[in-house]
């Protein structure tokens, strides 16, 4: 095991796949040798693999993703990077109308092994166009797989699975987890999609959350043991496919559920999870399902405003206390 940051682990996973498979290549804005990616995930890869396989592009999001699709259906394994998740809005046609639908629409004649990497989340005071969490848009589009790693070892194992998957994978990261460190196995490994991980076992209440909110939930869970509340924390790791089994088993055990994400509340992934649980585990629920989300506003800039917008430890703890 070696301790490394999420950023380092992610890069290590990409690098291993590039070494294994010459069809794998990267394209995106400022991912090459001059910059190494806006969040430095690809730093050093252009030097190692060359500018052809770590390809800087013009600022043309729709064509970046479209080009990745065209390359994927003709035999390559592209990873397209969109610098900020907010900017996938510029590539929605290629992501949602093309990549997601081509296999279905063409009756299984082709598949689209493309990975679109991007980053969501606030906390950096960079306002409404660089801070959103829009994963629900893609969960609502059949044909896309969605990975949401929150820990370094998962980032590495899941990116390798994403690259090898024959389908389009939206691989979403979070700005505030890049520097988080974790022990990562030295030997080669992959992590299958659709397998959630119970990050902390507990008996009284289940908390389900993603990325930085998951880290906050784990802090809160630790804190609440002092009050005698035993919290089970579930990390979904992928949203599509979704591990319903682990979630439902946990809820059947605890009888209570709190959902925590950074998304604005209306139509968020948490709404879908709540709906699934009430459909499939209603009889086991001892209290209403609580959602801890951001308010239905754009992400604000000024520190006190953004701090208010993003769910904090206190709100997560309050939601848990309310139903326990």
């Amino acid at each position, binding site marked *: 095991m070696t301790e490394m940051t999420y950023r380092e682990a992610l890069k290590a996973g990409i690098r291993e796949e590039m070494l294994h498979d010459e069809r794998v290549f990267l394209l995106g804005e400022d991912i090459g040798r001059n910059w190494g990616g806006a969040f430095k995930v690809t730093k050093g890869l252009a030097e190692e693999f060359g500018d052809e396989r770590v390809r800087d592009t*013009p600022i043309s999001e729709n064509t970046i993703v479209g*080009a990745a699709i065209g390359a994927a*259906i003709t035999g390559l394994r592209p990873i397209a990077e969109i610098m900020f998740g907010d900017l996938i809005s510029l590539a929605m046609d290629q992501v949602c109308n093309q990549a997601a639908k081509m*296999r279905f629409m063409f009756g299984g004649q082709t598949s689209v092994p493309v990975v679109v990497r991007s980053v969501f989340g606030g906390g950096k005071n960079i306002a409404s166009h660089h801070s959103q969490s829009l994963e629900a848009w893609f969960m609502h589009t059949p044909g896309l797989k969605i990975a949401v790693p929150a820990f370094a070892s998962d980032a590495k194992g899941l990116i390798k699975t994403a690259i090898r998957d024959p389908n389009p994978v939206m691989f979403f990261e979070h700005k505030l987890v890049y520097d988080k460190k974790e022990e990562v196995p030295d030997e080669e490994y992959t992590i299958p999609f659709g397998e959630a991980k119970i990050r902390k076992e507990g008996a009284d209440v289940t908390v389900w959350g993603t990325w930085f909110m998951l880290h906050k939930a784990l802090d809160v869970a630790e804190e609440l043991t002092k009050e005698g509340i035993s919290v089970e924390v579930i990390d979904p790791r992928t949203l599509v496919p979704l591990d319903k089994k682990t979630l439902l088993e946990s809820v059947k055990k605890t009888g209570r559920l709190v959902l925590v994400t950074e998304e604005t509340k209306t139509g968020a992934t948490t709404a879908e999870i709540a709906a699934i649980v009430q459909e499939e585990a209603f009889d086991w629920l001892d209290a209403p399902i609580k959602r801890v989300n951001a308010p239905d506003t754009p992400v604000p800039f000024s520190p006190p405003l953004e701090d208010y917008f993003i769910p904090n430890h206190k709100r997560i703890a309050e939601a848990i206390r309310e139903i326990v």
Partner: protein
Amino acid sequence: MRLRSLNQEWKMWTMSAKKKTLVDLYTQTIKIRKFEEKVWELFGQNLVPGTLHLYLGQEAVAAGVTAALKKTDWIQSTHRGHGHVIGKGADMNSALAELLGKKTGSCKGKGGSMHITQFDVGVLGATGVVASGLPIAVGAALSAKMRGTDEVVVCFFGDGASNNGTFGESLNMAAIWNLPVIWVIENNLYAMGTPIQLTCPSQNIADRGAGYCTPSVVVDGNNALEVYEASVEAVKRAREGKGPSLIECKTYRMRGHSRFDQAKYRPKEEAEHWLNKDAVEIIKKIAIEQGALTEKEAENIAKNLQKDVDKAAEFAIKSELPEPEDALDDVFAEVA
């Protein structure tokens, strides 16, 4: 109309070709015509669900371009794509079956007219979102280059698509990466009902190619030989690693935009002018004048194709509809 080369990259046109090429061009053109006439007939019998964007009138574009390609080359098609896929060599049985929504259709009845695709003959896809094919063509051409092949990618799109953002993004990316892609604009003068004069400030869309350092030319899109000659040169350039080219084909729809459109917005004189320039008649006349065909031979080719199309229609009509629950298949490929 004489073709107009917009820069010195294009050679002078010879307007002649080998006999076999002329026969092929005539055959391709009339094959697409026969196919589309059959589609129109089946549509009239209420056998084609949904909408239709017929290729009638524009046959010379698909025929001329695809005649310059190899089987290993790729085309990216559009919502008006029947002609492209038939030109590229698609099986007519499964093509017609697809239009009728049958299980035996090339897309198992999941795509229909706007997504008519046969991947195994080099069709990357047909897209219902105007201008969404250009980025995919960039990627396929990048792939062709990175895989070290001599494959060429043709991207068909209309005048309407040339006003979408992907036009600029994709022409730019293909040029900076020197990719083997050919942009084929089928300028049929109308984006649905909006005339080109209201949407394009210059007489030729091809003028825009210069801004992307892309050799560009305007040809008579109803003359398959002219389209073919331009395509041969563009294909040669692509295979030699000299990058993208753009061919603007001026053409005209014989019918409206889609199923119920009677195209009443088109001035009578304009429509008459273009409808007299029949793509099939033009290439037939050239082939006969150059001694490649006799009238009788041309007639026989047409008759044989008619038989093929009739058989394909019979196959499509007799084919089973999909089972309702087949709607759930093919969302994801199995993970190995």
